[in-house]
């Protein structure tokens, strides 16, 4: 079955520490993967997409087809990164369950 798995519901790190939010997918074709973020009291919004291979707010994500992963990384977390993060597979419009990231001062 096609799915998107985010194994951690909660992730807590200290400011300045590296952070990695995990995402694994299952899809038989060529995947189109996105990361969306929801800050407190804001709407869900796009963070980045694998096709563009860009860095947004210091975050990057690399598609690893061998491991079927699309982990989101940032070398130095900031308090303003605290939010809910969702990995999404655009091919079948599927979202993961989300990871709540808390960056402590």
């Amino acid at each position, binding site marked *: 079955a096609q799915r998107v798995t985010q194994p951690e519901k909660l992730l807590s790190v200290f400011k300045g520490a590296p952070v990695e939010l995990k995402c694994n997918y299952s899809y038989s074709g060529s995947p189109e993967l996105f990361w969306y973020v929801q800050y407190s009291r804001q*709407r869900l*919004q796009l963070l980045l997409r694998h096709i563009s291979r860009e860095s947004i707010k210091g975050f990057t994500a690399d598609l690893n087809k061998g491991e079927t992963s699309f982990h989101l990384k940032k070398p130095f977390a900031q308090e303003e990164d605290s939010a809910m993060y969702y990995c999404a597979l655009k091919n079948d419009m599927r*979202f993961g*369950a989300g990871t709540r990231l808390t960056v402590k001062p």
Partner: protein
Amino acid sequence: DAGVTQSPTHLIKTRGQQVTLRCSPKSGHDTVSWYQQALGQGPQFIFQYYEEEERQRGNFPDRFSGHQFPNYSSELNVNALLLGDSALYLCASSLSASALHFGNGTRLTVT
């Protein structure tokens, strides 16, 4: 640009009733997708409309239906409401295959 707007923001219905939720897409967007998000869960895809037709559908029963109008706005209808339909309903618009732009959602409570 107001972005994606949804109405109403909150709604309380009784089991067995019917409900209609509305969505206006971001200016220039032609595709509308609907999601259901239960508490503590990720958004679950209901369906997507493009050119006034349902283009893709998730694993939701026929009680969930929709419509897209010529101005690209959309409605989500749910018939014979169940307690389990209580959730946040999100509308997202996009331009064809681009990324999704979400509204703030409609919180539906079924009692």
